[in-house]
């Protein structure tokens, strides 16, 4: 227990988390500090490329574990089913109507790649290795939740929400293509490729992550400032209970598949995290009547900082206890 606390504190005092806090503070204090849209997009392209590439290289080292297929399948299933849990929770804890509840639920089945990266960082500084293909699992978990959310809505109101265009947009959205593409590039070029571009994608990675989280803090803070009033106590509770519940399911799943400790933690993080890029865009197209202020604020303003500060160390502690017990 002491360990968990000291780990959490350690995590809290990392430049990465403090940068997020700085952004949050600046936005809440209505500072003029802003990061241009193009710079934010550039940072996210860098991060996706680096993390995909490193995942691919890791696979060439650890080999393509026999559990790979099973983990990918597990990711698909989790992404598709977690929205149902989220929907049920929301209907219990809050007064959201079907459409809004389903839209929020979709976000929680999908994943946040930055939370995933933060999880990797914590593992690294704790000296815990993990399966390289967890990046591919992250990619696989982006989309299915969107379908579940749309199913939940059309069940209620009738009327198909999907068209071919939306399908393509979801499956070929920028972050999936970049993540999977660089994952394959990493696999194809292996350690030799990593030696070539390592000084770009390894050494400065954490520093770039700081600036990126500064921006996330700014965006989250602006969202929170605008959303006061929108976020009821029930919603707040959901934004914390849901990741906890999901992470436990991820823990069970990961242990059942036989993932390593690191792999289990990352699966927990993926389950616990909520999307704020891919899913919102899809929801705007397919479910314009859902209120973006609700799902964006919940996912980026509540669950994201919760995972970053308390969640990840907690998931690691849980997984460690469980492994010790097993």
């Amino acid at each position, binding site marked *: 227990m002491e360990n968990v606390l000291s780990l959490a504190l350690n995590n809290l005092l990392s430049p990465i988390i403090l940068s997020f806090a700085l952004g949050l503070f600046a936005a809440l204090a209505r500072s003029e500090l*802003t*990061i*241009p*849209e193009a*710079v*934010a*997009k550039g940072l*996210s392209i860098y991060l996706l490329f680096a993390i995909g590439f490193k995942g691919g290289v890791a696979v060439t080292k650890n080999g393509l574990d026999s559990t790979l297929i099973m983990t990918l399948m597990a990711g698909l299933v989790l992404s598709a089913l977690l929205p149902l849990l989220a929907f049920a929770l929301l209907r219990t804890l809050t007064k959201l109507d079907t459409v809004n509840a389903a839209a929020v639920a979709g976000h929680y089945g999908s994943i946040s790649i930055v939370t995933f990266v933060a999880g990797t960082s914590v593992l690294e500084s704790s000296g815990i290795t993990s399966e390289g293909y967890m990046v591919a699992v992250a990619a696989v978990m982006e989309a299915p939740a969107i379908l579940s959310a749309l199913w939940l809505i059309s069940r209620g109101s009738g009327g198909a929400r999907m068209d071919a*265009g939306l399908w393509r*947009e979801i499956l070929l959205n*920028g972050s999936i293509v970049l993540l999977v593409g660089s994952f394959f590039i990493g696999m194809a070029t292996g350690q030799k490729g990593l030696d070539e571009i390592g000084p770009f994608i390894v050494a400065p990675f954490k520093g770039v992550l700081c600036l990126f989280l500064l*921006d996330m803090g*700014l*965006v989250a803070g*602006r969202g929170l400032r*605008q959303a006061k009033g929108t976020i009821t106590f029930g919603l707040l509770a959901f934004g914390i209970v849901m990741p906890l519940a999901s992470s436990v399911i991820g823990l069970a799943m990961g242990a059942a598949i036989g993932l390593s400790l690191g792999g289990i933690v990352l699966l927990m993080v993926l389950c616990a995290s909520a999307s*704020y*890029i*891919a899913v*919102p*865009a*899809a929801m*705007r*197209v397919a479910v*314009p*009547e859902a*209120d*973006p*202020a609700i799902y964006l604020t919940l996912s980026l303003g509540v669950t994201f900082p919760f995972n970053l500060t308390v969640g990840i160390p907690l998931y690691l502690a849980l997984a460690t206890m469980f492994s010790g017990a097993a």
Partner: protein
Amino acid sequence: METHKAKRVAIIIEEPMERRLTAALDGAGVQGYSILPVLGGSGRSGGWTADGQLGRSGMRQVVCIIRPERLDDLLTAAFKVVDRHMGVVTVSDCDVLRAERF
């Protein structure tokens, strides 16, 4: 300079809907349009800014100069896309040089 009467249609629309709108314009036989960035704004659903945003959030402005007789086709096509979505559609009169190009 010789000018001709035309209509200027300006549609402010959410970024995730941009492709659908331009596809609808293409489908309606609209010959030309230009897409302008929008940095922020305010409306019934509150204020927003593009600063620091990732993904396809925010709004865009699609501007379309068109012969008056084609206006109704365009508006019908645009309306189908904008219908349930955020966005503003305005039409104004203008004179255009080199009308043979339209």
